[in-house]
């Protein structure tokens, strides 16, 4: 098992209603110097979270005790920019297991799926509804059911289906990763390689 399996997650959520959140904001480049996957959560949203003298910016949502949970809800086009998987690691290490948005950047989405963070893409209307619901009641739960591919707001405030390809879904449900799969077909790959010029 390469990472924790994901089945049903029910949690309060942290809202970040900003569009085009890029991976340089999620984890600035100067924190990419580690040679191990450790401690990235401390620098999640570093420059939005802390002043340059390292004091917390009290208005930023991660510094506001009102909001907590294992689900991060972001604005449209979340995770654009750099391919750094460190962004997904930072989100995971901070304690999030799911990111909800109306649109994800491609590489970020892949990176999340590869480490066991579930990206859930919802409609723009449902995203607005989620932000409003959290605004009204920070304790409102979101329930993400991977098996049923369903995300539910509160008990019955709204529900939406989300897409995930069945291969990745199976991986997430079981905590398998792509290397597990590829290793099992190595002979087939080597055969392919022998017919491919360098």
């Amino acid at each position, binding site marked *: 098992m390469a990472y924790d399996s994901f089945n049903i997650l029910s949690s309060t959520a942290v809202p970040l209603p900003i569009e085009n959140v*890029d991976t340089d904001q999620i984890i600035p*480049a100067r924190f990419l110097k580690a040679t191990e996957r450790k401690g990235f959560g401390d620098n999640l949203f570093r420059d939005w979270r802390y002043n340059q003298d390292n004091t917390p910016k009290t208005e930023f949502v991660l510094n506001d005790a009102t909001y907590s949970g294992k689900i991060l809800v972001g604005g449209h086009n979340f995770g*654009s920019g750099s391919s750094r*998987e460190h962004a997904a690691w930072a989100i995971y290490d901070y304690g999030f297991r799911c990111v909800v948005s109306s649109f994800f950047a*491609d590489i970020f989405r892949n990176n999340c799926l590869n480490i066991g963070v579930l990206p859930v893409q919802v409609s723009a209307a449902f995203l607005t509804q989620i932000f409003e619901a959290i605004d009204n009641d920070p304790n409102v739960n979101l329930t993400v059911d991977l098996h049923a591919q369903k995300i539910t707001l509160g008990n019955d405030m709204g529900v939406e289906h989300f897409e995930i390809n069945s291969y990745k879904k199976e991986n997430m449900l079981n905590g398998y990763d792509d*290397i597990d799969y590829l*290793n099992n077909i190595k002979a*087939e790959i080597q055969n392919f390689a022998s017919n491919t010029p360098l």
Partner: protein
Amino acid sequence: MKKTLFDKVWDSHVVRSIEEGPDVLFIDRHMVHEVTSPVAFLGLENRSLPVLYPNRTFATADHNTPTLNQHLPVADPLSRNQLKALEENANKHGISYWGLGHQKNGIVHVVGPEYGITQPGATIVCGDSHTSTHGAFGAIAFGIGTSEVEMVLATQCIMQPKPKKMRITINGSLNKGVTPKDVALFIISKLTTSGATGYFVEYAGEVFEQLSMEGRMTVCNLSIEMGARGGMIAPDEKTFEYIKNREFTPQGADWDKAMEYWSTLYTDEGAVFDKELHYDGAAIDPMITFGTNPGMGMSITKAIPSASEVEGGKATYEKSLEYMGYKEGEQMVGKPIDYVFIGSCTNGRIEDFRAFASIVKGHKKAENVTAWLVPGSHKVLNAIKEEGLLEIFEAAEFKLREPGCSACLAMNDDKIPAGKYAVSTSNRNFEGRQGPGARTLLASPLVAAAAAITGKITDPRTLI
């Protein structure tokens, strides 16, 4: 079946397709740098796996490296440690390694093409989103995350659903003072940073045919900034001429055989794209960005749009302008700047330094400007010297630094101070990208040069 260029290259690299899942895609060449690889190598160790094809893997140090005094030990212990880890991993697994001080060292996307590692019809990946650069040669090239770096090291494959296909056609010819960078910033300003997400782009039409290989690399490099996984241009005589006789290019009979394949690499007449866009080359002006993502760009002659004129959230737009210290309706031309950065995998090639020199020749650097001129590789650095550009720069009071990614992402000491404005030829103007609090204005080498000698944002056409 009519196929696009993208289909031809992709389909010929599929080891197997998983129903309702990704394709297993064989990767011809894998480039590795110090920042996104150490955890991947660690993963291999934890699984007790070797690197399957070390001869398909190439390592260079670039993101962390200093651009002054490269002969001295790297001062920052974390950077030094990361560079050392790459060297050790490369040695341990038998991967060719062009580290700091090596004559072939440079930015991964600059040295790949320089040594012929980049070839038409190849699949190329690297743990860096600007891997799209190599698409200029008709390769499928894209950035990957560290889990995928580990995957490629271990199995030479990645698992990807086949992206949708988009063709961007620009006919006509470019006006004086308009560069490949402007073409790319123009497209991104039309598409936004998410407009091509989920697509692989082919650039076609007279404008791209007329571009040099360096120019094509600049355009393909910026594909990721419109959300596309990558962009590519069909190889032609210019492509073949560029790669001929480079170190890793096939020679003799192998070259002839490769040419047979490469000459099939074009989009068939009548092949279907999921999306097609057309623009007129003559309608493109020198561009500059005014906000905090590469989609927030416009003609240098224009005023900053008001929130009501742009798509998307008003709050996000206002936050962006506030960060930049700009207001809706202001003209960009004439605004003072503090720094100029020419370099990066976007505009750190010899053609970019020639363009910069063409403007600064006979002038002096403005006193209020700090300028960092950072070649993309040693080869570029040597060409700058051999072509006499260095003398032009020095006469104009510019200093040349040593190769690396430098202030593009400011992982080394080349950081723009908080609140300062930098006209940069790099690729991202995100908040803090060039240093905490730094304000980046993305532009071409010509616009950067014009700003460097006038100390303010200047339309380079007034100096040509």
